[in-house]
């Protein structure tokens, strides 16, 4: 049987021929059938009947052949399966229609209605099947690829115009030669690069550059200048589409005018232009500051521009949001905190017509909170974090100190860029990248990381693709990327394509050479030059990029999206260029730019309504700010503000390093290695001398993971079981002159080995104002064996005890409260806290790479973290305790306060009723905790409206 398979295969291939019978016959039959409606044109009837019967038979045959084609040729995939089932269904329906018709003719039905219904359904199904079949043959984008605006398609109009221009002239000018060649190269780019580029050299042919085109492929030269008919390339593109040798093999045959252009180009000597081919659209480098539209109703420059835009796009102005909405939005955007109820009330009462501007000024002047809010944005953008890969071997460096200071003093943006690109010790972490031990891929060497990160973060251009091969998404080439990366290298880099060395050295260059020369002897000099070239006002790209990012931060969507692809078309280029120019004129003042945006009516519009997510992705029309969700940090800080401090410790302490205490615990060893401590009790001792002077004050700070009892000179002084809490004790009464003993019984909980540690500090102030500090450090001793009762006594012999181990701070961070100074209700701002699972779930990125758009998806894992996460629930539980102490058992007061503080408003009567019913007359911790939860989860709370 095997030997007859070819016959079946051959038959199968007739499928694509035969399918046209049912399509033609049944569609025409339906058309005629419609013509006979209401009893007209009865002469058509006989023809219709024949078409239906033949159509049904041919549908069945076509379906069978289709089945053969699938079986004997190599067809598979979802599309094929769908086509198959629909095809079978169509055939069956066609037969049913035919049977219905026959029954009708035999008089089993009183009219044609049933049969007509069958026919309509058949034709609909047939059309879908036919469309799927066509998609299989021609490709799924066969139809859509010619839609206007599809950038993948080679711009036909330009080619046609050129063709006409050249056809009508006898001689060809140099300028025309340039144009012709670039046009031909564009045709190559769109149709041939897929296989014949430096990245993928099929038949050893490269059509991407002059060298490749004239060198030809494995079968020799492909272009004979002046002689199209002798040029292999021309021959191959003009073969019949069915020919095995035809080019392009994949995809579509070239269009006639494309072939004509190539012919013309070869005829005219196959001239090669020096100009670079820009296949992809590229934004112009320089800014063009537009004149502001008249728009007499509008005062603010942004509003004037938007007014013109609205007019063009037929959008009406809405009235600006109310005071309550505005103040919340402004607070969140500038300082990342919720306005307190009193501030809202006061702001609403204020009758000053300029109060909104005044508020914006006040917020921008709140340096401390502004810095701690915007730090997160910059950390994301500059790939700066307190923990992450690389730190373990010194292969990575923070720039937090520099960044914090820069924000604090509102450093001008050009200077920030200069200091990032040409860094001092404090800012070098950015271009240093992340270095892993071992051998890394050439495209990930730190010099290349510097090029990629500067490209992405500062210039909105993707250098990543072009660090491996010529980019598929922009005009950037491998050589340009290596030239750029070489600026940061000790010596010029060798080009690598997909990690394979090419034996070709890079030429140092900046991505936009028109801005200036960056070549120099040393790195230092090159970086200096680069920093100067980059910040030139002519480099509109740099300023557009940051302007666009700030717009997105405050308005929810960029003027260009994605914000890292600044060659994409902005929805309003005038607005972008005006703002960027204004930013430059302000002296590169970031706060000026923010104020410019925030004082506009545009910023103060109500959040816009869009049907679905896609509406803000493509074909976007600006109608107002986009509803945003609080960031992980903003949510955490808001909870800290209202309920209870969420985090106790920071990873970066802007106030300096604080006290010299370390987290100490018993040293535990397994197989000669230090390991995490096992659960259980450990005993610690420290002796010290008190000077023979009068003590005016003696204070202790202590915090232990997991729990402790503290003894001083045999007196039990305190105990605690919360490492996030710092116990502050006055211990002067327990001290004596001469030798003293501190003893701590510590306990590590849990079922498996886990971090544990004592953090302790004692400050003794003497009458002569001299101070003595005793800290937890390696002078302490410990044991894991339960000692006898005397162990807290000075006379106990601890010679057998071992020196403790310093467990560092990475597991705990720096406790904000671990300070002898007074605390003013301050909490650890989330932006300063080390990455934490809770914030991670809420979308704070791990900054292993530049992260410029946060994942704002509401995910199940995130909802789980909010619903049953131990961390969040503990915060709420402890917070409930605090609230009950603060507000007594006044349910009404609690309910009102909660809504005022979370949502900035009183609960409505109805809401109050629901809340009070849940809380009861005598509020308990549990009920209050649940009310907290229900309120904090509300969209009204989580969104910045």
């Amino acid at each position, binding site marked *: 049987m095997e030997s007859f398979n070819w016959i079946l295969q051959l038959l199968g291939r007739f499928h694509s021929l035969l399918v046209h019978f049912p399509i033609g016959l049944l569609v025409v039959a339906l058309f005629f059938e419609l013509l006979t409606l209401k009893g007209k044109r009865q002469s058509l009837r006989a023809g219709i009947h024949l078409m239906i019967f033949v159509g049904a038979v041919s549908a069945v045959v076509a379906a069978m052949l289709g089945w053969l084609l699938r079986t004997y040729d190599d067809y598979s*995939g*979802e599309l094929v399966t769908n086509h198959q089932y629909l095809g079978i269904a169509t055939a069956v329906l066609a037969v049913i229609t035919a049977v219905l018709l026959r029954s009708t003719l035999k008089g089993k039905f009183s009219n044609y209605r049933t049969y007509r219904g069958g026919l309509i359904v058949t034709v609909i199904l047939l059309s879908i099947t036919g469309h799927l079949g066509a998609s299989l043959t021609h490709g799924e984008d066969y139809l859509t690829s010619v839609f206007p605006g599809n950038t993948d398609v080679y711009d036909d109009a330009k080619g046609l115009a050129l063709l006409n221009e050249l056809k009508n002239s006898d001689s060809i000018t140099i300028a025309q030669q340039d144009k012709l060649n670039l046009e031909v190269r564009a045709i190559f780019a769109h149709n041939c690069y897929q296989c014949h580029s430096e990245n993928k050299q099929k038949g050893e042919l490269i059509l991407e550059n002059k060298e490749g085109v004239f060198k030809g492929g494995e079968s020799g030269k492909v272009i004979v200048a002046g002689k199209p008919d002798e040029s292999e390339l021309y021959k191959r593109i003009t073969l019949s589409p069915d020919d095995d040798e035809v080019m392009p093999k994949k995809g579509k045959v070239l269009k006639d005018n494309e072939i004509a252009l190539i012919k013309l180009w070869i005829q005219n000597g196959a001239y090669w232009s020096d100009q670079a081919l820009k296949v992809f659209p590229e934004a112009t480098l320089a800014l063009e500051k537009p004149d502001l539209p008249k728009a007499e109703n509008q005062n603010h420059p942004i509003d004037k521009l938007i007014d013109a835009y609205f007019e063009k796009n037929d959008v009406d102005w809405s009235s600006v949001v109310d005071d309550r909405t505005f103040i919340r939005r402004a607070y969140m955007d500038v300082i990342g905190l919720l306005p307190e109820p009193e501030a809202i009330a006061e702001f609403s009462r204020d009758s000053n017509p300029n109060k909104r501007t005044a508020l914006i000024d006040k917020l921008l002047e709140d340096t401390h909170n502004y810095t701690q809010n915007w730090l997160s944005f910059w950390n994301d953008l500059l790939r700066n974090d307190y923990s992450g*890969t690389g*730190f*373990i071997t010194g292969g990575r460096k923070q720039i937090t100190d520099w960044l914090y200071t820069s924000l604090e003093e509102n450093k001008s943006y050009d200077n920030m860029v200069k200091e990032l690109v040409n860094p001092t010790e404090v800012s070098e972490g950015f271009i240093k990248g*992340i270095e*892993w*031990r071992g*051998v*890394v*891929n050439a495209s*990930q060497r730190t010099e290349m990381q510097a090029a990629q990160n500067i490209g992405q973060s500062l210039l909105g251009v*993707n250098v990543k693709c072009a660090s491996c091969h010529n980019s598929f998404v922009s005009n950037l080439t491998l050589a340009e990327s290596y030239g750029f990366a070489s600026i940061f290298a000790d010596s010029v880099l060798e080009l690598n394509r997909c990690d394979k060395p090419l034996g070709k050295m890079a030429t140092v260059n900046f991505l936009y050479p028109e801005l200036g020369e960056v070549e120099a002897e040393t790195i230092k000099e090159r970086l200096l030059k680069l920093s100067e070239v980059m910040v030139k006002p002519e480099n509109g790209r740099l300023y557009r990029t940051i302007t666009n990012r700030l717009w997105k931060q405050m308005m*929810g969507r*960029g003027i260009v999206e*994605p914000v890292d*692809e600044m060659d994409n078309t902005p929805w309003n280029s005038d607005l972008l260029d005006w703002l960027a120019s204004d930013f430059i004129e302000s002296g590169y003042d970031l706060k000026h730019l923010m104020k410019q945006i925030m004082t506009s009516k545009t910023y103060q519009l109500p*959040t*816009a*309504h869009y*049907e679905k*997510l896609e509406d*803000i992705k493509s074909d976007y029309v600006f109608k107002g700010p*986009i*509803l945003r969700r609080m960031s992980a940090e903003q949510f955490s800080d808001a909870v800290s503000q209202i309920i209870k401090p969420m985090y106790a410790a920071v990873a970066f302490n802007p106030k300096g390093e604080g006290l010299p205490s370390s987290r100490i615990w018993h040293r535990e060893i397994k*197989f*000669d*290695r230090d*390991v995490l401590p096992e659960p259980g009790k450990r005993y610690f001792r420290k002796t010290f001398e008190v000077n023979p002077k009068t003590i005016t004050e003696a204070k202790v700070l202590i915090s232990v993971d997991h729990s402790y009892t503290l003894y001083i000179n045999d007196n039990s002084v305190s105990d605690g079981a919360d490492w996030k809490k710092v116990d502050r004790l006055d211990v002067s009464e327990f001290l004596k002159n001469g030798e003293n003993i501190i003893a701590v019984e510590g306990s590590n909980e849990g*079922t*498996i080995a*886990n971090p544990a540690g004592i953090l302790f500090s004692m400050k003794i102030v003497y009458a002569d104002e001299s101070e003595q500090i005793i800290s937890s450090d390696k002078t302490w001793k410990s044991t894991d064996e339960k000692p006898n009762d005397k162990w807290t006594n000075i006379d106990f012999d601890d010679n057998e005890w071992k020196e403790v181990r310093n467990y560092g701070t990475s597991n705990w961070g720096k406790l904000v409260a671990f300070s002898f100074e007074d605390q003013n209700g301050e909490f650890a701002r989330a932006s300063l806290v080390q990455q934490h699972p809770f914030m991670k779930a809420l979308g704070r990125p*791990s900054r*292993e*790479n530049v992260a410029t*758009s946060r*994942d*704002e*998806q*509401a*995910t*199940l*894992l995130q*909802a*789980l973290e*909010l*619903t049953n*996460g131990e961390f969040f*629930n503990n915060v709420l539980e402890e917070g409930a305790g605090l609230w009950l102490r603060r507000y007594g058992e006044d349910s009404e007061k609690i309910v009102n306060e909660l809504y005022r503080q979370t*949502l900035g408003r009183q609960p*409505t009567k109805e*809401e109050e009723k*629901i809340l009070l019913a849940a809380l009861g007359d005598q509020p308990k911790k549990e009920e209050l905790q*649940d009310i907290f939860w*229900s309120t904090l989860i*509300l*969209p*009204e709370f989580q*969104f910045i*409206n």
Partner: protein
Amino acid sequence: MDEQNTRRDFIKKMASASLAASATSIPLASFLSSCKGSVPKISSTADTVILLWMAGGMAHTETFDPKAYVPYEKGVESKRVLSTFPKVPTAVDGLDFSEGLESIGSVMDKGAIIRSYKSADLGHILHTRHQYHWHTCYEPPQSVQAPHIGAWIAKELGPSNPVIPPFIAMGQRFTVGEAEELKAFHSAGFLGTEYGPFLIPDPSGGLDSVRPPQGMSIKRFEARYKLYKELANKSKVMENGSDYQRESLMRSMEQSYRLLNSPEAKVFDLSEEPKEVYDTYNTGRFGLGCLLAKRLAMNGGRFISVSTEYEPFLGWDTHENGHTRLVKMKELIDRPIAQLVKDLDESGHLDRTLIILASEFSRDAIMEGRPGEQVKDQVPQPDVIEDEKFYGMHRHFTDGSSILLWGGGVEKGLVYGKTADERPCSSIENPVVIDQVHQTIYHALGMHPETQYTIEGRPFYTTPDGHGKPIMDLFGKPMTKTKDQDKEVLAS
């Protein structure tokens, strides 16, 4: 469990939990310039994957590929020591394991072994870097965050039971050394946190992650959710903005509520197991991880990893006392793994569950790295062993190691590939690299080899550039292969 049944169960469970299309993501306003490329589905031989991760570098010559046994005696030369355990037979004729792995040996007639896995050459050896490479198929660093294999699977296939997260990682804590490097690959990367691992460091506490918060009764949990819904309905203040944003937030909360309130959460409860079963598995956290993996696999888990846990210089990472420590490691894994295979086999789940045991690389007494690409020694090893502490495999060897597989369509009793019997004990037949391992897993699950995702404008494939072919021999479909292909693999 046949595929039909799984599907039906799946639909039934979906209905009972009335979840929207399982745990697919609910986009709010995201501009991550990424989108999924479309590829056709192919037929599958497995629905579930259990990865048994031997963290820290398991020496093949001491475990599943024993060589000549040289017993300890004072003064033995290091270079003579190939294996520190005698060989023991397995259920497969001609296949020997190392002493202490008899139970696993007894179930080898239900599975296959690859003896020729070659780790990548990444220069100076760092465990977490190789582990990153093993789990993501990409060498760190990368210009975008590469997803873990479990995240790819979660993204492509979703949960097969909506109550069980599709990517569960057990056994590894992140408070140990190199924690940040471990976190870097326990991640869904650019696929988004939705597909990230559901972490269960201690399997005996697994239940806590899928039930209402500790100390909260079901009644209270329900009342709390009801209160939230009521308040959300009354809160009419947000008349602006887009409805889809608010709705997606509320939908995710509803999903989580239903999941946590589902009676099926008891799958995570190990106390449901009869005492003797529990005791058989309980050799420690790893053993209990196997027990939980069994329960998950029987109830619609998708990708489950159980790690012996990486902690620098502990577990398989033997920088000294290699022999004595391996006795303990074998006790930890032998019984539970064998029981897992047996239990899934008896219940019929093994047919559609692919179990894989692997490690980032192997170890050797002499060679650090691999022949031709030796790297700086990290462990001092005397030429002559005077102290038993130096008896064992203490250096990192990347040229040959073993991977065990059971179920999910894998040929039974197959031995694929081979390493040399003399040092260096490199892969000398049918060498296998990580791309192939990943493609083999994807093949079993019916995921197309060119599955990809477009991120920052470029396609990112499950394996670099979509390279690597599934090892069809494992599925009983040997491929004709030229010598050149071997060479290609060896060169890569």
